[in-house]
């Protein structure tokens, strides 16, 4: 212990703290809801502080190359499990901490009380997500994926009803199969390279013989199938809209983050494994086309959806598809902007899903059905008084928040969605010589997807907020309005601070493009000598 500065142990905190706190909360009686909530909240605040500290360390020159390496149980790489913080994982830890804080506060009033063990499951979910962002070992990644998924199975079913059970069964079955694929891929990678350490993988892949390399490529493709099932690439993402629509709003907001974990795993593993040697750039083209197909599928789906949960689900699919196409297109400049897009779309989508939970409340029972029937029979009914007069503050808040999240999701000015798309197009078009047709395809599809999202969200907005006569002022609690304001406030902050943030993300992407630095740092980290051996 003496040899290691205490700051290094901070790397372990985002995994250990929620795990222990979640376990400690299991025996506590559900009746003591306030206590459970308080423990969870304190835990989330500590995680936020920890994520902020790691964020500063990763970019502030605290560690060489901005890479913090933690040798678990003091085993030197590649023999032990290595935890690693770089700019990307620090950023995603911060995103997780902010999002989970907002979701937790939102669920305080009602959602956390409709079933048992919400807080324990929530904390275990955080353990899994944080662990997946921090680990540098493929098998450890599998374990954290399973922790995350097991907690999410419980959370999707939270508030047990028939819809959730039906959606949950399919969600669980698909993810169990995906986990098996994960294991097969893992086993093939271990069989060919003899290592599971991601940093150790790169040099070994580059040195493989041709027939072993083919086997390894099969292994990584099977592994990628498991990641892409989480990331909802077409045709692996059919589970997503049903699950989003069935899950309770806070859980659905956390699920948005989980799809990003799948994309993260690709971004993390691929450059380390396939940046040098004969297999450099392997599979990127498939990823690009998969992303394109996902955008098309998501756009068609969002146009066809009536229900808000499904609209959000297809929105998440579009955002996943855009990210995958960006990763597949390649290049650090594009990846940096892609990460900016990831942040904005995750925050806005989570805010939208939380809002959906509140808008259910303004519809009197049957109003939604009535609106549908009226449209089906083309009944035109003039409202008696102009809509909009005397809208209470709660309605104004909901409307404004809806508009803001819709602006980010569709990529309209002035919020961060526009900055993200504009920068994307700028990077795609600023090449020497003629712009490749793949870039044009991507631009056109992103624009079309944006248009589809606008149409779908406007339809939802008009029906919800302008549905004449059916609007009833909802009772809005501060604990429900504040988290949504926080998430949307972050989107606004991202817009204002776009330049420094994009600089940071550029450094992140540049670092990801230099896997040799990772290899040097991870394999070069020496174990701390045991106290007895220090003479």
């Amino acid at each position, binding site marked *: 212990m003496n040899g290691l500065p205490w700051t290094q142990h901070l790397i372990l905190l985002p995994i250990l703290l929620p795990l222990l706190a979640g376990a400690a909360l299991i025996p506590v009686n559900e009746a003591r809801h306030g206590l459970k909530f308080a423990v969870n909240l304190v835990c989330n605040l500590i995680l936020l502080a920890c994520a902020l500290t790691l964020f500063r360390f990763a970019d502030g020159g605290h560690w060489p190359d901005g890479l913090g390496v933690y040798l678990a149980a003091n085993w030197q790489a590649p023999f032990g499990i290595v935890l690693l913080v770089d700019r990307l994982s620090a950023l995603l830890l911060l995103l997780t901490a902010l999002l989970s804080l907002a979701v937790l506060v939102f669920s305080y009033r009602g959602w956390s009380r409709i079933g048992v063990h919400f807080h324990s499951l929530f904390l275990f979910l955080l353990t899994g997500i944080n662990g997946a962002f921090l680990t540098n070992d493929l*098998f450890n990644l599998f374990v954290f994926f399973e922790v995350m998924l097991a907690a999410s*199975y419980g959370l999707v079913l939270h508030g047990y009803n*028939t819809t959730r*059970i039906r959606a949950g069964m399919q969600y*669980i*079955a698909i993810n169990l199969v995906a986990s*098996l694929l994960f294991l097969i891929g*893992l086993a093939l990678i271990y069989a060919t390279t003899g290592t599971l350490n991601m940093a150790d993988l790169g040099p070994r892949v580059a040195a493989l013989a041709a027939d072993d390399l083919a086997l390894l490529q099969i292994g990584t493709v099977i592994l990628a199938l498991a990641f892409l099932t989480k990331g909802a690439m077409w045709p692996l993402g059919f589970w997503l809209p049903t699950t989003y629509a069935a899950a309770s709003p806070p859980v659905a907001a956390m699920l948005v983050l989980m799809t990003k974990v799948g994309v993260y795993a690709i971004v993390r593993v691929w450059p380390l494994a396939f940046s040098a040697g004969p297999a450099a750039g392997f599979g990127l083209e498939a990823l690009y086309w998969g992303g394109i197909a996902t955008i098309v599928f998501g756009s068609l789906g969002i146009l066809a959806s009536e229900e808000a949960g499904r609209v959000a689900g297809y929105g998440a699919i579009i955002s996943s598809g855009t990210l995958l196409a960006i990763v597949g297109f390649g290049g650090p400049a594009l990846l940096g902007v892609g990460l900016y897009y990831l942040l904005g779309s995750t925050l806005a989508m989570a805010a939208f899903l939380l809002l959906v939970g509140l808008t259910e409340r303004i519809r009197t029972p049957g109003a939604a059905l009535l609106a549908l029937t009226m449209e089906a029979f083309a009944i035109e009914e003039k409202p008696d008084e102009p809509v909009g007069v005397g809208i209470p503050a709660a309605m104004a808040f909901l409307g404004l928040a809806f508009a803001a999240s819709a602006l980010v999701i569709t990529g309209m000015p002035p919020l961060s969605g526009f900055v993200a798309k504009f920068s994307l197009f700028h990077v795609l078009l600023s090449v020497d010589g003629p712009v490749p047709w793949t870039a044009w395809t991507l631009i056109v599809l992103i624009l079309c997807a944006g248009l589809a999202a606008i149409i779908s969200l406007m339809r939802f907005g008009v029906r919800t907020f302008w549905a004449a006569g059916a609007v009833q002022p909802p009772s809005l609690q501060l604990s429900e309005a504040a988290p949504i304001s926080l998430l949307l406030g972050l989107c606004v902050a991202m817009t204002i601070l776009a330049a420094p943030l994009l600089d940071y993300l550029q450094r992140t992407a540049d670092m990801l493009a230099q896997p040799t630095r990772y290899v040097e740092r991870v394999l070069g980290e020496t174990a701390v000598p045991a106290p007895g051996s220090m003479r």
Partner: protein
Amino acid sequence: MEAVIAISMGVLFGSGIWLILRPRTFQVIVGLMLMSYAVNLFIFMVGRLWVDKAPLTLQAGTPQPGDYADPVSQALVLTAIVIGFATTALYLVIMIGARGLTGTDHVDGEETDE
């Protein structure tokens, strides 16, 4: 021996795939279990096939790696078995819950018209 192992894994996995595509939840869970057996065997075999070799040594001095089986794949398969067991048990609970709430054991939660 390789052929026997490979064929048995293939049969297990193939039967599993057929079963998870069936409409009854019981068939799905049996399929998932068969597939996980196949995968566990596969992970185990990734450390190569050995006969009568220990995965670890307690002797002093530098051991000859060729005299020992690969311990990593055995450790991996142990973890995979435990996790697979836990998630399958979880699925079983939800299966029973679904049967209770929907009154049918169809995977969609409702009977399709014959």
